[in-house]
Structures are given as structure tokens and as C-alpha cells.
């Protein structure tokens, strides 16, 4: 289940700009994927798959979102102006700063949800 759900969540993230989906929902779906995995294999095994603590995803996501937010400033536009590459990239489609912002949201949501759930499940039993 895990790979499929993760793929689906990523798909949701990418299509967000044109069809229902986006970083927030994508992040939630990905978290559900990990939560289901932890039900099946135990939280500690899920943590092993993740490689490191979900807490680390939060600053990473925040950083990406902030970068995407302030990137236009370096090109001389106001904060949060959408920047887009000229040519669409295969598979992903149009790539722009909004997508990176969404990616940041995606990571933060996974980080937050998993941090809360795993902390509770690991430390309160």
C-alpha cells in the first residue's frame, strides 16, 4: 500500500494547480500512507523506513516554502509573485515557484502529522 499511496499523494501534489489536489491534501494522503504502514508493521519500523525523524521534515518544508516565497524578490518582483519556467517539463508539466511552495506545504503537513501521531504513539504507551 505504502508506495501506491505515496505515488498517489505525489500525483495529487503535482496536479494541484489544474485539478483537485494540492500540497495540503497530498501531504495528508502521504501521512495516511505512513500511518497505515505503522499500523501494520509497528511505529518503530515505519520510523526506520523514513530514515530520520519526521520532525526534520518541518524545517525542510518551511525552508522550501519560504524560499519559493522570497525567490521572486531576487528577480526584482514583489514577494510571492509566481515565477514560471518558459517550457513545460515532461511528466511534471509546467514548473513554477508555486509548485515549490506547494511542495513545502506538502512536506510540512507530513512532518506535522507524523510528528504528532508518532510522538503520541511512541511515548505514551
Amino acid at each position, binding site marked *: 500500500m505504502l508506495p501506491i499511496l505515496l505515488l498517489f499523494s505525489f500525483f495529487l501534489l503535482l496536479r494541484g*494547480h*489544474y485539478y483537485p489536489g*494540492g500540497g495540503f491534501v497530498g501531504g495528508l494522503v502521504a501521512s*495516511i500512507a505512513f500511518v497505515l504502514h505503522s499500523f501494520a508493521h509497528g511505529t518503530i519500523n515505519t520510523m526506520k523506513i523514513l530514515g530520520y525523524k519526521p520532525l526534520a521534515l518541518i524545517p525542510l518544508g518551511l525552508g522550501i516554502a519560504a524560499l519559493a516565497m522570497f525567490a521572486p524578490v531576487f528577480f526584482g518582483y514583489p514577494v510571492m509573485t509566481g515565477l514560471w519556467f518558459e517550457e513545460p517539463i515532461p511528466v511534471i508539466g509546467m514548473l513554477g515557484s508555486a509548485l515549490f*511552495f506547494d511542495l*513545502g506545504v506538502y512536506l510540512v503537513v507530513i*512532518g506535522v502529522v507524523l*510528528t504528532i*501521531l508518532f510522538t503520541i504513539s511512541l*511515548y505514551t504507551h
Partner: protein
Amino acid sequence: MLFTLLSGLITSGLLIPFGKFFRTKWCAVLILLPLAIFCYLLQQIPLLANGGVRYEKYQWVPSLNINFDLRLDGLSMIFGLLISGIGTLIFLYASAYLKGHRYLDRFYAYLCLFMASMLGIVMSDNILLLFIFWELTSISSFFLIGFNNDNADSRKSALTALSITGLGGFFLLTGMILIGNIAGTFTISELIKSADLIKGHELYPLAIAMVFIGAFTKSAQFPFHFWLPGAMKAPTPVSAYLHSATMVKAGIFLLARFTPILGGTPAWSYTLMIFGGFTMIYAAVHALFRTDLKSILAYSTIAALGMLTCLIGLGTEAALIAAITFIVVHALYKATLFMTTGIIDHETGTRELTRLSGLRKVLLPVFIAGILAALSSAGMPLLFGFISKDLIYEATLHANQQLSIYLTLAAIITNVCLVAAGFMAGIKPFTGTLPEAYKKVHLPPAAMWMPPLILACLGLVFGLMPQLAGKQLITASLQTIHSGSDMVYLKLWHGFNTVLMLSLATLAIGTFVYLFNKADEKKMVLLKPFQAFSPQAFFGKLGDWFVDLSEWYTNIMHNGFLRSYLIKIILFAELLLAYELLVGGPIYIDYSKLSAISVYEAVNVFILMAAVILTVITSSRLTAVVGTSVIGYAICLMFVYYSAPDLAMTQFTIDTLTVVLFVFVLFNLPPFINQANNKVVIRDTVVALGFGIILSIIAIRVLQVPTDIAISKYYGDFAYTLAKGKNVVNVILVDFRGFDTMFEIVVLSIAALGVYSLIKLRLTSSEKE
């Protein structure tokens, strides 16, 4: 001009990382900063001839009318010179006084910040900018007064000073906003033009009352004077700087600055004269009862400030000349006296007047400085103080008939006491026989005794050649506050007249009082019974009440129970919404516009209601959780029916996760105990029903209000053209309202960190047990 302000601010910031290099003798390098500013200002003097003003304008927050508008006119110049000039000497003095102190770098950082904010006050052309610097002086002086932060007394007096001046600042801001709104501008040069408009406005009395409270708290006027003697806990260089030329003069500066805008009305004049007059007599008499050198100086400072307030209130040309001259004179001699006191304290270890005598034999240069300053404060001929005393009497004598007697009398009483107080502080410790204990006292390094000596000699130089100061500086600053003034001629000799007689009489009586007022600790006992009525006691009580009030409020509003927070929030929302609905007018339902209810929807609603009832009446937690998730999924279906796929997806995933979360948490909770009694159940039911009803009414109301489709149309139209996205909801999230999203994810992260640290923290503390 901008650099004069920014250099101080930047230096103080840079001292945080690089401070350790300036803890040693290298701190002397910092003296160059005020010195450079002083030289720069000196250079600018010729520009100000004939009322010239230099402006510099920088945009800052134009939408709030806060701009970095600077002006350099006569008044700013005279204050700027005092601030930077005395600042230079204080920097030098402190380098020796606090030599080897652990936090010398911090001290200089605070001092730089303070100096820069003082310069900011006097150079602002925008009253809101002025206010910002005003507050900065309060904050930086808090750090300076509480510099010996391992001493409880010191912390307390710093807090007192901050609360009093902070309170005043609050009122001042109100006053400034009032004035700015009446005149429609926040620029001082434009406010002066609309002075008549402001004076004629019905809110004028309120505005000046606010400005007065601001100025009085800063300049320690009765009944806010008591923070100043308390602030004597600061290291002496701080007292010398704050209480001679800077902090306390800020209030005086404010009054002088606003004289052309608000001054000249009876309300303005009489209030200032009454408060100033009372303060000066009250404080001057108080000074005589003290035996601590710094306390004497503190009270005589308050008296001098009262005198200045009174003179500005009088507001005639003669009075304003006297005020400006007295500002300079007072700054010169008071800084000197503070510094000599500091040296005495530093070398002998005491400031008790009863124990000090005969120090002239060991501290000769300090003695010279002290005696010059004391004589200047006494108004001895040939010294600058004499000229200012003459001007004061001239101003009070030439006030209108009834006032002149009272004012002159008040001025005489104050001056007599000030003569005595000045002698007590500047001469008494040095005369008489030298006690055995102080035989070994030796002269401190030159960096300590040079600054007071320089200032004292300046008093002599200006006394001999008053035109040096009078010709340009005092004329220029007079012209800024009193338009149409001619050149000011300060003269050493006015001829035999009433003024001279008064001056000499004051000097004689003052000397007499000094000789007969023996320093004695018993005198303080006489004042004891009045302590209970003093403003200090009153404000102390006020502070206690405030603490009680906040405790009571906190206990009610923040008792730590989630249920009590929830009920308060919901009740408040109910009241607010219900009021809005009541005001909003009648409600009706237009059945013709409603679409038909399909079978799916009806079934869905039925499931939803069943789930609600189940959740409410169940006695098992798990069932309740399942019930709420059923509600969630039912709502999710509704979103699907009404074509909101994004919402549906989010709702669905959130609900799934919530159930998981609940299940995790439920493991750790005790079995379900029904703690609520009937009363609580009924209360909760009423609140919940009320909320439901109000929301339903709002929903109906939303139907009847013609939907403003402009907003959704805007997003719909521009989502693709501006942000290149076809999914409007997502485009709103990541582009149009990107900032909101950004802050939301920040909040989410904080919540996660909170949960993480709370649970981890509790675990470690239980592990310790």
C-alpha cells in the same frame, strides 16, 4: 544628519557580537562616536543663522504617516550639542569609572543606544518618529538604570522609571495622534502652520493634557517625580548623563518643541506654571533634607526641571530666553556635580554628606570643578549661572501684574534652596578637616577628573563671554520656538537694578541657609509621617492593585481547562453573532429559489443526524469518536454533492487522521467517567443549541443576501492568466493568499513542536522521578 542617528544605533548593535574587544582599554575608541557627532553639529552652526533649518526626508512607512523626516534647527542644535558634547565626556568618564567591569561592553551599547535615541528625539520632524525615539530612550534608560542588575533595589528603580515613563509615553502617543488627526499632518513644520486650527479645535484641551502627562512623566514633574531619585541607583556616569542633559530634558524639549504648535493659550500656560511652580518649590525644599549626595542632586534636578516647565509655561520672549539659557547652564553644572560626586563615591566609598569633609587636600582638581559648578548653580557673578539667574528674574518680574509677584517669590524660594543644595553637593565634601580615614585617598586617573573640570571651566568661559553662546545658539533656538524674535544679547552686567538686587539677595540667603542647614540624618525622620501621602506610595499601591487584578482575571479566564476555554469562546461568538443578526433586520426564506432535495441528500442528512445523536448520548468514548467521524464523512459527502472536490478530499483525509489520533490518545485516558452533573449538562446543551440555531439562521441569511459574485469571478478569471493554474481553490491557496498559507504552515509546525516537546518533556520529568 541621518548618520548621527544611525551611527549610534548601529554601534550599539555591533557591540553585541564584537563587545568583548571593548571590555578592556579599547573602550576608549568608542569616545570617537559622540565626539564625531559633536564636531559635525558644531560645523552646522553657521547654517542656522537667521532661523535657517536643515531638513532631510526619507520615506519609511508612508501609509501610516511615519517618515524619517529630520530637521536641524536652533533648538535641535542646542540639545544636540549638549547630548553629544556631554556624551563625549561621559563616555570618557565611564571608561575610567567602570574600568574592568565585566559588562563594560554592554554598558557602552546601552549608552550608544540611549544617545542615538535622544538625538533622534531632538532631530525628528515627524511627531510619530519623535515618539518612537521617545520610547527608545525609556527602554535604553531602563537598562542603564538597572545596570547593576544583581541588586534588587536597582532592578526595582529601573522598573519604576520604565513604568512611569512608559505610562507617560502611552499618553503622549494618544496626544500626538489627536494632534495629527486634527491638523491632518504629522510633520512638525506643517503642524506649526496649522497651530491656530489645533488651538481652536474642541479636542485641544484633551490633546494638551495627553502631551503634558508625557512630558511630566519624562521630566519628573510632580506627581510623577519620584522615579528620578530612585534612578540614582544607576552607576554615576549614567545619572550624570541622564539627569543633566538628556533623559529628563526630553520632556522640557517636548514642551519647547510644541510651544509654537500648542502654546500661548491660558490652558497651556497656567497648567505648566502651576505644575512647574509647585514641583520646583517642593523639590528644592526636599533637597535640603537629604544627606546622600546623589539624592540632593536628584531633588535639585527636579527643582530645576520645575523651573524650566514654569518658564516655558510663562511663554514670554524673556521667559523663553531664560529657559533656553538655563537648560545649558543646568546641564553644565549638574553634569559636573554628578561627576564629582561619582569621583568622591569611587574614591572614598561613601556619598553620605555627614561623613565627608576636607577632601580638597587630596582631590584638588575635583574640588576646583565642584566649586565652579556650585557657584554657577548659585548664580555667582562671572559664572554662566549668574546670567541665567538674571534672565529668570527678569522673566518673572516682567510677567503680567498678578503673576509677577507669585512667580518671583516662587523663583526666589527655589533659587535659595538650589544655592544651598549646590553648595552642599559641590563644596561641603571638600571643606573642613580631612578625616583620618580618607588620608590615603588619591586622585583618580585623568579620564575621570578631566571631564567635570572641562564642563566647569566651560561654565566660567560662557559666564565671562556670554555672547559666545548667546549670539548664535540661543538666538537660533529662540527663533524656532518664538517666531519673530530678534538677536539675543546676553550680558554679564545689566547695571544696578531690581534683578541684580534679587540675584545677590538670593545668593546671600542661600549661603546663609547652607551654613545653618547642617547635614544630619535626623532630618529625614521629620519627613517620615508624610511618606504615606506621597505620590510614590500611591503609585506603589496602584501597582499592587494592578497585580491583584491581573491575578484575579487570569484565574477566571485562563484556568487551564480546555472545556472552560471552549465554552467562553463559543459564548462570545454567540453573543457577537446574535447581536449582528438582531441589528441586521428581518429574515425570510424564499422557497422558490431553493433547489429540490434529492433522495441522496435526504439519506445523508438522516445519517448525519443519527450520528450526532449517537455521539451525544453514548457512554463510550470510542463510540463517540466513531460518531464524530461519521458526521465528518457525511459532511464530506455533502461537499461532493455540491461540487467542492477539494474540500471533500481534505475533509476525508483529515477525518481519517483524526480518528487515528483519537484512538492513539484514547489508549492513555482513564475509562469514561461522567463527571458532568445535571447543571453542567443543561448549560452545555443551551450553549450548543444556541450556537446551532444562530449558525442556521446565518445560513438562511446568507441565502437571502444576493451573493457578491465579484470575488469568485475575480479569482475564476485571473487564476489562469495571472497564476497559470486551472484549479481555483489551489491557486488561491498558493498564490493569491500565499501569505496566509505560509503562516498557516508555520502555525502547524509550532503546534507539532508543542506536542512533541510537551510529551517528551513530561516523559523526562517522570523518568527523573
